[in-house]
């Protein structure tokens, strides 16, 4: 029986992009359903009643929520193709640690960069750059966080790069000037077809942010 895989998503979401990329890496066919977050579908509310958020992976009618949990589910359900996690338990623990680090630190700060001004924004920018430098340290001389190939941490982080242009424009700074290694890594990732196909255009993200700012009454 063929698998039925549906992804409930919202195009600029970096969390949704993680899932798109993992499914692409695994060569899993799925139906992409775009959600209007101002008017959430019945399906979304039924599939994620606790958080009512995207992304949600629906596999043969059963929902999996939370992007990093979805990534691990995809990895464990389709283990034979393109493993995202290493087989060694210690390396796996390190990968999980860094994916967790991103979720704890990155998103909130990025949000502050495009929603605030003045001193608050300066602090957010500074902290965001510090986090990126920590990530550069972890990357080291490796081409990818996963080593020679794209891995779990790469899939977890690279979608955030689609928001870098928006952060730079809103915050009036250059991420490349501060973190050239991280930008080099994002460019390396984008050379991979599954990545370039799964990630959205940063300029479109910036347009989306501008519209959102207007709607929220933020200058």
């Amino acid at each position, binding site marked *: 029986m063929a698998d039925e895989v549906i992804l409930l998503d919202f195009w600029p979401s970096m969390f949704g992009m993680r899932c798109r990329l993992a499914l692409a890496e695994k060569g899993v066919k799925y139906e992409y359903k775009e959600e209007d977050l101002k008017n959430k579908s019945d399906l979304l509310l039924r599939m994620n009643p606790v958080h009512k958020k995207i992304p949600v992976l629906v*596999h043969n009618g059963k929902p999996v*929520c939370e992007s990093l949990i979805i990534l691990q*589910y995809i990895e464990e359900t389709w283990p034979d193709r393109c493993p995202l996690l290493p087989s060694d338990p210690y390396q796996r623990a390190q990968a999980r640690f860094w994916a967790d680090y991103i979720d704890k630190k990155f998103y909130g700060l990025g949000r502050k960069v495009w929603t605030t001004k003045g001193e608050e924004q300066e602090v957010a920018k500074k902290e965001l750059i510090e986090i990126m430098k920590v990530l550069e340290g972890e990357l080291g001389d490796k081409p990818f966080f996963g080593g020679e190939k794209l891995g779990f941490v790469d899939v977890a982080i690279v979608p955030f790069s689609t928001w870098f242009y928006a952060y730079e424009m809103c915050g009036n700074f250059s991420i490349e000037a501060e973190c050239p290694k991280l930008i080099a890594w994002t460019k390396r990732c984008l050379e991979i077809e599954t990545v370039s196909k799964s990630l959205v255009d940063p300029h479109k993200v910036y347009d989306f942010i501008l519209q959102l700012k207007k709607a929220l009454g933020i200058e």
Partner: protein
Amino acid sequence: MAKGGEVKLIGGWPSPFVMRPRIALNLKGLEYEFLEEKFGAKSELLLRSNPVHKKIPVLLHADRPVCESLVIVQYIDEAWPSSGPSILPSDPYDRATARFWAAYIDEKWFPSMSGIARAQGEEAKKAAIDLVVEGLSLLEDAFGKISKGKPFFGGDTIGFLDIALGCFLGWVRVTERTQGLKLLDQAKVPGLAKWAERFCADSAVKGVMPETEKLAEFAKLIMAKFGAPPPQ
């Protein structure tokens, strides 16, 4: 069986997060050296082993650090696969379900618990308590669906989600005592109330669950010193 000296855990007795790997190590029948941190002063070893977050718990396995309590629990499960029961379920969907509720507990439910002590004024306190009770009702529901009539979320033995939630039971009891509440109410959350008793009585948990009295005293000390509940 881990040899003496091979496994160390940096932690503190009051921390529910530290309790998680301790329970996991006990389930696996593994010996370890417990390196107790002094509250308010972080050791060189901790700062070296967890430079990113500088927090406990940190597991040191043959001197290699693993940080973040749930990452550590999964590591223990995977590094010693033939010792003791499996901590995570084997089916990918069940694993995703366990991880989902563990994340809910860490990101939503436990912060709501801390919210009770922090709430200023009657109204805010009531709202904070309602939030926790709401969460417990969701967890009661989840327990029913996941345990399928068995004693634990993990089935016949303690598993990942039991550990993720159970570690907070000491603090639940302290909150019940200091606020004059009944959170694990037999009438409202019968499944969880009985599960909590079974969990605390389990041999893997008994020795590492702090006594409510001791915890309550510790909480008082923290509030007096910092004017706020202990950090997460």
